[in-house]
């Protein structure tokens, strides 16, 4: 039986268990005897008893299966392979697997008995697991049914099981984050073993080409990340310069002035901007905005490089507008009507009310929105890669081409790379910096927003 059929069977058992549990519970009711919980709770309890143990077993089985089989097979490999150990064994094992799976690999007479053994193991393994899983399901079903009694606190039991399930789900998310973070930390630490932290954070030359072979000349690699930080900062600032005023003003218009009809068209239209893939913005920036800027610059006698920070920043700003406007719109709407009434009641006009009461009241929330937008801008890659170039210039001129942290991470990792070269590891160090900066920004933004919430609750 394949895995998916097994799952299907368990799902069917789940329904059967639920129905019969609930029915059984109802039959327990006699005059003078009342159930502790609703019949549905008894049904759920039996269903959980039926399904959870086999599912857990399948999970463990899936995790342990491969290592156990490998261990068994390794013992069967020819003696000289075993003697070489490590990589050679795993190479031989994968060949065995391929052969057993019928893949188009040249047969190897030495491995033939091992292949046979594997096929045998696999069929026994699947028989065994299916039988055990089904047996466990039926046992759980029987056990659950037998436990049913009017006094059984089924509601509480079901609820605590559900709580554990919910906890496990959130645990998966947290563990994933921790896993990613620790891998980034580890690789970054390896990098800092080769390149001093100080040189990385404060060096002004970025040229990550390193010699692949010892006899290669030149290019020892230089990992001063300041040009990347500066480029990131400049592009993000240009973007915020566009996105904050426009986003804020459109939020004010939408929440305070627009009629419901206008709002019902304008708000979705604005949110469409958020749905455009960034790569589309990227080629818009590179193929439309950059040439326009270049020819405009030529008209007034300015030299604009064909890949410029300005083009990337402008387009990124447009991309972020809906982000700023929809978050600000929410916080402005959350300002209590009573405050507006108070201001109107004193004879203030609408614009006075907005400027002097609504905006100050919403300010913490707006600041939070802007900070989230900044962290979005810092993390944006595609537009910059396409429109701002790859050259790590350290410049304050927005008409020059610059590069950012995210773009460099991409360029460091595309193509064939050694996993432990300084060049590859540098990407992790950059990633760590990026992660820390956005983490701090998001944390501060959340705190600010939270404080704002407390003010009106």
């Amino acid at each position, binding site marked *: 039986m394949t895995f998916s059929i097994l799952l299907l069977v368990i799902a069917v058992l789940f329904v059967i268990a639920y129905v019969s549990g609930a029915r059984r519970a109802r039959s327990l009711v006699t005059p003078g005897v009342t159930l502790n919980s609703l019949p549905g709770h008894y049904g759920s309890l039996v269903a959980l008893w039926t399904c959870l143990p086999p599912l857990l077993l399948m999970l463990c089985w899936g995790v342990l299966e491969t290592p156990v089989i490998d261990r068994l097979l390794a013992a069967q490999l020819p003696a000289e392979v075993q003697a070489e150990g490590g990589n050679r064994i795993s190479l031989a094992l994968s060949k065995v697997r391929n052969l057993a799976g019928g893949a188009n690999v040249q047969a190897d007479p030495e491995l033939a008995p091992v292949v046979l053994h594997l096929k045998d193991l696999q069929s026994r393994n699947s028989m065994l697991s299916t039988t055990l899983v089904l047996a466990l399901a039926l046992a759980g079903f029987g056990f659950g049914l037998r436990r049913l009694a009017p006094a059984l606190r089924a509601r509480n039991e079901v609820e605590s099981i559900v709580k554990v399930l919910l906890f496990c789900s959130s645990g998966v998310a947290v563990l994933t984050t921790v896993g990613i973070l620790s891998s980034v930390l580890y690789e970054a630490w390896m990098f800092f073993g080769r390149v001093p932290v100080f040189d990385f954070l404060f060096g002004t030359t970025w040229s990550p080409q390193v010699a692949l072979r010892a006899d290669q000349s030149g290019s020892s690699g230089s990992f001063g990340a300041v040009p990347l930080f500066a480029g990131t900062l400049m592009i993000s600032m240009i973007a915020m310069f566009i996105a904050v005023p426009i986003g804020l003003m459109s939020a004010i218009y939408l929440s305070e002035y627009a009629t419901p009809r206008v709002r019902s068209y304008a708000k979705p239209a604005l949110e469409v901007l958020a749905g455009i893939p960034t790569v589309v913005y990227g080629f818009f920036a590179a193929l439309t905005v950059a040439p326009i800027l270049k020819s405009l610059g030529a008209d007034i006698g300015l030299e604009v490089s064909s890949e410029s920070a300005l083009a990337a920043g402008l387009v990124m700003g447009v991309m972020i507008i809906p982000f700023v406007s929809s978050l600000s719109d929410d916080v402005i709407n959350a300002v209590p009507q*009573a405050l*507006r009434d108070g201001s109107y009641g*004193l*004879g203030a006009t609408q614009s006075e009310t907005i400027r002097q009461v609504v905006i100050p009241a919403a300010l913490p929330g707006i600041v939070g929105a802007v900070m989230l937008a900044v962290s979005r801008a810092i993390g944006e890659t595609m537009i910059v890669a396409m429109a701002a170039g790859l050259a790590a210039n350290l410049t304050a001129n927005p008409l020059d081409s610059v590069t950012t942290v995210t773009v460099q991470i991409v360029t460091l990792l595309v193509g064939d790379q050694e996993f432990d070269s300084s060049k590859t590891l540098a990407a992790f160090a950059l990633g760590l910096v990026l992660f820390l900066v956005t983490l701090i920004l998001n944390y501060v933004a959340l705190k600010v927003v939270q404080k704002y919430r407390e003010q009106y609750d």
Partner: protein
Amino acid sequence: MSIIENHQTDGEPFCDSPKLKARGVGVFYGDKQAIFDVSLDIGANEVIALIGPSGCGKSTFLRCLNRMNDTIDICRITGEILLDDEDIYAPKIDVVPLRARVGMVFQKPNPFPKTIFDNVAYGPRIHGLVNHRHELEEIVEQSLRRAGLWSEVKDRLDAPGTGLSGGQQQRLCIARTIAVDPEVILMDEPCSALDPIATARIEELIDELRDNYTIAIVTHSMQQAARVSQRTAYFHLGQLIEVNPTDLVFTKPQHALTEAYITGRFG
């Protein structure tokens, strides 16, 4: 209890020296009529209490008196309201100076998220009433004194107004209203969110303010109406049923509905 056809208000809806005059006022929210043909005088330097069961239109009527209903899109008003014999709904009237003349205090204290000083200074600033900082400081102090809050906040004018207690916040809102020197103050259940001590303080204040201002107060508490007002108007389902001197309303109500309400048969 349904709407009474062509009900004529019992008692004395008119008075000798009216500050505000409502004549045949009707209010609609969309298609739904909330106020029916109300005619009422509010005399100069008197406190008039508007009472009646929830949803009978007290707030709606009060909000007509300084055109606060303009902020509600679906709200439409018929009839006329005269402030010193001038129609406040006439096209040439600007609501900004109108609302400076007819101020409003709301049910829930709603200080702005600004300092105590800036809360009170808000009105004078937007109306350009002052040219110098010391004039502004004088107005703020005067208003806070009249609202009976000065001694409690004089040392922390820079603290946020939202940090005061509920009763203090409501007095701050009254001070804020007084600061633009209105002629009429409308109060919509100003004590309903306050404890008895803060309530007593505000009632005292209303009594003091009567010397300088005309006050219309909506209240759910009949004791409060009896304590602070000279005349009482009883509303029922959008109609003005009875208007009489307060002691008369509470001792000898003229209309059966008024009697039912004040004896607590519905409310």
